[in-house]
């Protein structure tokens, strides 16, 4: 059966095939002459259909619901851009939007600076760098939810952080960190940074491993100091690693959800709500499917815009 389908799209038999499968197709231009084609095009079909259904059809349908007042059951009305007007006039939603951007950019900057610093420190000379790499990477594999609970305890009013502050005589600094309107968002940022730094470090260590020692030595002989070597030799060489670490960090940072649910539950009084937690609250807790979809559409648009900008900025170096 697999042999007797000469109409197969990917089949381009230049060398003799067998049986009925032998057919020369001339309308497809191979990238290299004499390239054999293998497999059947319909092998890709289940995958394509599943991705179309779960990613594209569902997202498009969500985009349609964003313009309705559907509650999840029964009839709904087409209400145009009312949902979006409501979002941008509601201070709590604007705060959620600001928090989303703050957490995404704050975490990307801190994670990449710290991750790169550790990677540079471990890169050369250290005998135990692989053991240290295992330790710094460890939080990455854990569930963000579980990790957030540990940190919730650390930030607890009777937790280790306040106990430590009291022990060194800084009683005035103790507070209920996750319940404080100013500091709650920073506790979430700290948890994200703690968990993601190892990921950036590993990407940068892989990037740094590809930078030849000779180039750095040549620069050093030419009189470049440590900072100059970093800015003009190392950093340009690991540009692809920077692109990947920052893009993934930004896309994931914009949809932060688990950490907030575990640490603050969007509190105090919505001070740590983000677009992702608002989508959950509106669509699944309050039953405002249409409004929740509109919030999700705003989040999607932001993610796609930043993903494109990110690609342009980090990949558009003419020297590459």
């Amino acid at each position, binding site marked *: 059966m697999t042999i007797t389908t000469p109409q197969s799209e*990917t089949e381009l038999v230049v*060398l003799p095939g067998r049986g009925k499968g032998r057919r020369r197709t001339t309308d497809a231009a191979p990238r290299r002459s004499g390239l054999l084609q293998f497999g059947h095009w319909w*092998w890709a079909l289940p995958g394509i259909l599943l991705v179309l259904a779960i990613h594209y059809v569902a997202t498009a349908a969500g985009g349609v619901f964003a313009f309705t007042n559907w509650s999840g059951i029964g009839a709904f009305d087409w209400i145009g851009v009312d949902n979006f007007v409501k979002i941008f006039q509601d201070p709590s939603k604007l705060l959620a939007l600001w928090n989303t951007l703050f957490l995404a950019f704050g975490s990307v900057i801190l994670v990449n600076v710290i991750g790169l610093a550790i990677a540079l*420190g471990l890169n050369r000379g*250290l005998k135990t760098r692989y053991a240290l790499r295992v330790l710094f990477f460890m939080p990455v594999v854990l569930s963000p939810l579980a990790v957030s609970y540990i940190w919730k305890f650390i930030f607890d009013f009777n937790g280790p952080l306040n106990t430590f502050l009291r022990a060194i005589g800084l009683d005035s600094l103790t507070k209920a960190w996750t319940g404080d309107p100013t500091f709650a968002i920073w506790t979430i940022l700290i948890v994200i940074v703690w968990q993601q730094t190892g990921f950036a470090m590993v990407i940068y260590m892989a990037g740094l491993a590809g930078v030849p020692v000779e180039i750095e030595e040549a620069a050093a002989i030419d009189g470049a100091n440590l900072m100059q070597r970093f800015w003009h030799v190392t950093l340009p060489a690991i540009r692809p690693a920077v692109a990947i670490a920052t893009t993934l960090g930004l896309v994931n940072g914009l949809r932060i959800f688990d950490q907030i649910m575990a640490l603050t539950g969007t509190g105090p009084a919505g001070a740590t709500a983000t677009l992702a937690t608002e989508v*959950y609250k509106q669509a*699944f807790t309050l039953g405002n499917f249409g409004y929740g979809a509109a919030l*999700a559409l705003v989040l999607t648009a932001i993610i796609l815009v930043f993903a494109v900008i990110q690609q342009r900025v980090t990949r558009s170096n003419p020297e590459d």
Partner: protein
Amino acid sequence: MFRYTTLTFLREVGFWLLAALFLIPFFFLVMTAFKSDEELFTTSPLGGPTTPDFSNFTELFTAQGNTNIIQGLINSTIMTVGAILGLVLLGALTGYVLARSTRRWSKAVYYLFLIAIVLPSQLGTVPLYIGARAVGLTGTLWGMIILYIGMMLPLAIFLYAGFFRGLGTEYEEAATIDGASRTQIFFRIVLPLMSPATGTVAILTGLIVWNDFFTALIFIGGSSAQTLPVSMYYFIGSLVSQWNKIFAIVLVSMIPILAFYLFAQKKFIQGFAGGLKG
């Protein structure tokens, strides 16, 4: 130029101190999980228990219903393994066709998958939930496995396509001449050659599925198919500041993945570093 000097040694010591500080949350986790209810208040949160107490764990493993942690562990394992198997099969087949095809549609389809990787799941979640509810897939293990396969498939295909492009066609050509069918070539020659790719796909997607909370909360929260993170969320939701009990469940939830990580740490780190380089 890069000799091992006293300075390098100091840098090494410094990094170990930094690592100890970095991992201090795990110290609090273990110390608190073994405290009794009484010692939770009488001992310092910075230190350990005077007499280790295991009652938090026995209580944890006897919890029933919404907070049944054993059931959560079993469900998480079934879902992760099921999703990985589906992702490896569909991801490899699709990635193979895309990498070997020279037709224009395959390029378009490849970009379709690439965009789907960054497309946030939130917008599609609402219609997916309605669709899944309509066909009875919410609250079932099968429904979740299919959903996870669909969600993670773009990443799996992207990884496989990258690996397949790096594989020359010599083996396939030789096998064709020897009279192997396309199916035989794929399953008996190409796929076994791709085991590093399969490892990367399994680790990256498996980790995301295992740790997923958002999708699991929406689709199976409150059902008997609840995964570990959801069970944990409900279990902890019923405890107010009982950190010894909270940490018992957090510790138990971390042990499987930490054991697996420490056992296969090289593969994990290579999977992240190599697989995502693109």
